Each structure stands twice: as C-alpha cells, then as structure tokens.
C-alpha cells in the first residue's frame, strides 16, 4: 500500500508532539519575539547574579561607579578604581544634567539606575520561575488526584482550592509573607506565597483536563485491556493533560512577576539593598514630584518581561490549539 500525506489523516486532529509544537512556535513571529525577550531577561538575570563585581556595584558597595567605569572592571576585576563622589538622583541622559555615564540616572544612594534595573531582572525571573514551579507542582498533584479519583476526594480537594482562590492572591501573599516570616519578609516567603496562591488555577486546569482525558476511549481501552491504574495515569493521563498546563504556566510566570512587583512595591518583597523593580518603584513613588523619571524605568522593565512571557504563551497556545490549525 502506498501512503501519501494526503491519504493519511483527515485534518480533524491536531498534530501532536513537541517537535511539531516547536516548529509552530518558531513560525509564529509574536511567539518568537516573546522568546527573545525571555531569553534576554533570563540571561541578564543569570549573568547579573553570577558576576560578583557587578553585584557589588549595584548593591552599593561601590555605588558611585558609572556604567562607563564598570565595563573595564568587568574585564579586570582586581583593578577597581577608588570610589569617587556620590551623585544621588542624577537625571537620565536625555534630561538636563544627565550624562552617558549613568544613562538612566542614579538613585537615592547614587547607584547607577540602569545597572540596578538590569540586576532587578534576577529577582523577578527567580520569583516568576520558582513560584510558578511550586504552584504547578502543587496544582498538578491536587488537580490530577481530584480529577482522576473523583468522588469525595475531588469534593474535598476542590473546596480547599476554592477557599485558597477566594482570598485575593496579593492579600494572601502579603499576609503569608508578613506573618509566616515572623515579621521579616523576604523573597523566599514571597516565592512560597505566590506558589501557594497559584495552586488553585493550576489544579483547576489540570483537573478539568484530566476529567476530559479520563473519558477518552483510549483510557477506557487501556482499562479494558487490563493496564494498571498507575500505568494509565503515567502513559495516558499525564502526557495528554500536561500540554495546556505548560502553556498556562508560561502565562502564569508573568502573573507571578506582577504579584511580586506589587508585593515589593508595598515593601514586603525583596528587601534593600537587593535591587528589585517593585521596591524601586516604591521609592520612586515618593520621588514622583521631584524625580519623575525614576518611576518610569522599573515599570518599563516589568512590562517588557511580562510581555515576553505573554507573547510566548500566546504563541504556544496557538501552536497547541487545534482550531487555529484548520
């Protein structure tokens, strides 16, 4: 029998497999754009976290070095020039009194604003990834168990999830970080808090997915064939439930970054001197009338990062959605 492409398949079912999905994403300009943003943000986050000298600069130990000065430092860390005079609240380069030494100006301690913004990616990305990972793990566990077993287990778990969801995420995270940390809020608590707060969405998604996969004939066929429950979950349920969850996780990273930015803005996220966008906005808010430009850059950084995840997530969703395929 000869088989041509056209003879096989009747276009009703989407192509599956990661290779196909990746190809789709590659072909989608918006998803590609999102991927670039994520890649830049991630590498900036990793790079800034690894380079001790840059960290020291941005943390304030050598707070008055300018961008122009620390570039040679990176190449030759031993030869740190002596600190100069502190210049606080310098305006950005395009404003009157600004210079290319500090393209975005300096902050209240005279630290270079651009390098602090770059460094701020570290916290945001870390929170985004780790919190989402926590939420995903917890949510998948709860949702899969609830969906597969059903009955009272489902009832109890889903009621629990509903309760968590009812408390607005930001409020939950604030209360959690403040009270669980014993009054010493820190990023770790923020990550934990956001992780808990995102468990409900993940468990709902995975549950509804499992509910529909569970009804698929191939699951029933496996059961009829005598395949064990464990193998059914492993081979059939999870692989077929996971794709939409992954899409959602991408979008959820953006949401986590958003929440933590708010948390830091209120003063309960990363604590100074760790550079963090939300926290920088908190300070800038007080300076709004005097140094308005300080409010702009951290916000733009948050916007771009989250947009990267949203673009990529949308592209991924399109790639996995059979309706777009037709």
């Amino acid at each position, binding site marked *: *029998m*000869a*088989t*041509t*492409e*056209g*003879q096989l398949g*009747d276009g009703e079912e989407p192509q599956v497999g990661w290779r196909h999905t990746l190809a789709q994403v590659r072909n989608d300009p918006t998803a590609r754009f999102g991927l670039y943003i994520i890649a830049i943000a991630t590498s900036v986050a990793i790079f800034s976290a690894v380079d001790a000298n840059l960290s020291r600069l941005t943390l304030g130990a050598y707070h008055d070095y300018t961008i122009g000065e620390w570039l040679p430092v990176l190449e030759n860390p031993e030869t740190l020039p002596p600190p100069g005079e502190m210049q606080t609240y310098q305006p950005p380069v395009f404003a009157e009194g600004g210079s290319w030494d500090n393209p975005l100006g300096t902050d209240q301690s005279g630290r270079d604003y651009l390098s602090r913004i770059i460094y701020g990616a570290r916290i945001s990305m870390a929170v985004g990834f780790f919190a989402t990972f926590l939420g995903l793990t917890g949510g998948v566990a709860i949702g899969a168990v609830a969906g597969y077993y059903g009955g009272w287990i489902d009832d109890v778990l889903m009621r629990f999830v509903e309760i968590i969801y009812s408390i607005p995420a930001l409020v939950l995270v604030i209360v959690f970080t403040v009270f669980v940390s014993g009054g010493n809020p820190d990023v770790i608590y923020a990550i934990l808090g956001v992780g808990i707060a995102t468990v409900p969405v993940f468990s709902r998604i995975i549950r509804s997915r499992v509910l529909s996969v569970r009804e698929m004939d191939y699951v029933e066929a496996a059961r009829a064939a005598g395949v064990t429950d464990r193998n059914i979950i492993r081979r059939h349920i999870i692989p077929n439930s996971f794709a939409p969850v992954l899409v959602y996780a991408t979008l959820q990273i953006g949401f986590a970054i958003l929440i933590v930015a708010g948390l830091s803005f209120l003063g309960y996220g990363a604590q100074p001197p760790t550079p963090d966008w939300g926290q920088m906005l908190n300070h800038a808010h007080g300076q709004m009338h005097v140094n308005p430009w300080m409010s702009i850059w951290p916000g733009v950084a948050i916007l771009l990062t989250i947009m990267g995840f949203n673009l990529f997530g949308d592209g991924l969703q399109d790639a996995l959605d059979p309706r777009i395929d037709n």
Partner: protein
Amino acid sequence: MSNETILEVDGLKTHFYTEQGVVRAVDGVSFDVREREIVGIVGESGAGKSVATTSILRLIEEPGQIVDGEITYRDLTIVGFEEQDDGTLTPREAMLSNREMRDQVRGNEIAIIFQDPMESLNPVYSVGHQVTEFIELNRELSGGDARQEAIDMLREVGIPEPENRFDDYPHEFSGGMRQRVLIAMALGCRPTLIIADEPTTALDVTVEGQILDLVKDLQTKYGTSFIWVTHDMGIVAEICDRVNVMYLGEIVEQGPVDDIFHDTKHPYTQKLLESIPRPDRTVTELDPIAGTMPSAINPPRACRFHTRCPDARVACTEVEPRFVAVGNDADGDGDEHEGEHNDHRTACIKYDDVGYWDSVPLEKVGDRDIQYVGDRS
C-alpha cells in the same frame, strides 16, 4: 416531468486556500433542480457535497472561495464570471451583490437545514423566537402575524402544543423535535427550494423515519423542491427523484434514482452500492472499494477515481473524463423521461470513445484489500 428548472449549477469550482495547498473541494460540478422535485447529492465524506450546497447560498467562508462556474436561480445570477482580456475571471455585473443575496435569495427563495439539530439552534433564545425571527424577516409579516405563522408551522411539523412550547429553549427539545423545528423554520419562510444537508444523520432510525415521512408530506403540500445531501443510499432510494453521485469534488454520475440503482454506469457508484450491507437481505460477502479517498489538495490526474477503480486502465490516468449521456431503457418499462431529455449521465471514459478499451488495465499493487496505484505527484 415537465417541471421548470429553477436552479442551475454549471461548472462550479469552490477551492480552499490553506497553508497545505489549494483544496479543490468542489471542482467543476454541474447539476440542476426542477420544481417540486427532490434532488439527491450523495457521496462519502470529503466528496464536497456540503461545499457544493453552501456555494449555492454563497456562504463559503475564508479561506474558501468560489473561483469559477455559474449558478443561476430562475433569472437571478447567484454566481457568474466573465473572462477579462488578461485571462482572469471577474464576477459578472449581473451577479447579485451580497445585499441582494440576503434580501432576495437567502431564506425567502432558498432555505437550508443543517445536519446537527443540536448546533443549529441558538441555545440562548427560545425556539419560538428563532422561528418567528426568520419568518418575519423573509416574509412581509408583522410581528404578531409572524408569531402566529410560527406557531402554525410548529404544529404543522408535529410539535405538540406549539403555543406552550413556543417559549421553550432548544435544550428542552429532543433531537428529533429540534430537527422538526428547523423544518418549520425553513418551510415557514415559504422558499421554493430547501437545501437539506444530511438532516437525519444525527438521528436514530425510528426518528429518521418520522422526519422522512414528514418531509415527504410537507413537500407534496407546499410544492417545495429539495436538494438532499446525504451519504445514505437508503435515504436516496427512499426520497430522491434524481441523484448526483459525488466523488472527490466532482459529480461522477447523475440521473433518475431508478437508473442510478438499477442501471448503474459509473464504477464508483457500482462499488458504493456493493459496499452497503442490506437490511432487506442477507449478504454473505461485501465487496468494498479499496483504499481511502485521496486528498483533494492533490487529486489524482485525469479520472479521480482511477486510484481505486477496479476497472481502471492506463487511459484513465491520461484522459480527463467528460460527462456522457448513458441513458437507455435499461429497465424495459418504456421509461417516460427518456423522451424529453436524457437525464442519465456519467463521467467515465468507458462510455466515451477515447480509447479506454484499447488501453492496458492498471496493475494492482499489494495483495491486501487496499490497493493504491499510480499517480501521486
């Protein structure tokens, strides 16, 4: 059968421009519909039946497009093209605008019934409201009169207590009842022609029987013509006057229902009939058509059926078959419709003098029941 022809479809081509390529869903289809008759369009899924009928109402959506052909309804040009100097086709001036289609054709002259009664009614409006809306739109009736007409039509199609059920929502009706509602909707607009796109496929046999009876009764009463799209040869035999057999975007055989069943000419029709298990007699061995339908993106060259045809010869891969009249008085009953026009036609070169019989039979590949030969370019 001296009824006037009301709809003529000539050389219709509707293609879909997809990323994978041009799907030639309907590729040069011609048929007509006369007053007070039921014309069947039969074929397997992917044959292009529904695309052909939706083209008549010009309801083809992106990425689909009617690219060639003529569709004339009485004196209205639904589709018509003229060739420009540079060889491109542009719509003729006489072709109805979208607005004219809406005001003059859709609903009031040609109505349609879809396959799935579950999906065809809007779940958030009451059934009566939906029937009334279409009647009001397509017949110059005031709101109150349209409502009364809707109730009368619902009663006509066998909805018990239509006054009380008028405000019920679609989900409160069974599948059969919903299909009756859709029939009421169609007939309520008093169209001359109703396109029924597999209207009983989603229904159980006993309900299907009820609907077929109802349609036959109402067709006689209102004198409506039908185009009945189906894949079920039983239904074709049951209600159609004339039949068009479609395969892969083309009509391969058309003619009076009796000729199609008892004087079958095209090998596809022949094989299709042999594939059907019979309710009325025990068949010991079915002889199915080998293989599956090829893609409409890259259909086989020349005769599209040659890849699966038991009678295929080399000529079949080379010569584009024409429609030839094959009507003869095969049943020997002094066939009365032969005199006026020879209705029975088929697109197979066996019946044309183009060298089929001198050609070599195509070699069969494989020993199993799937044989797929030849052109795959």
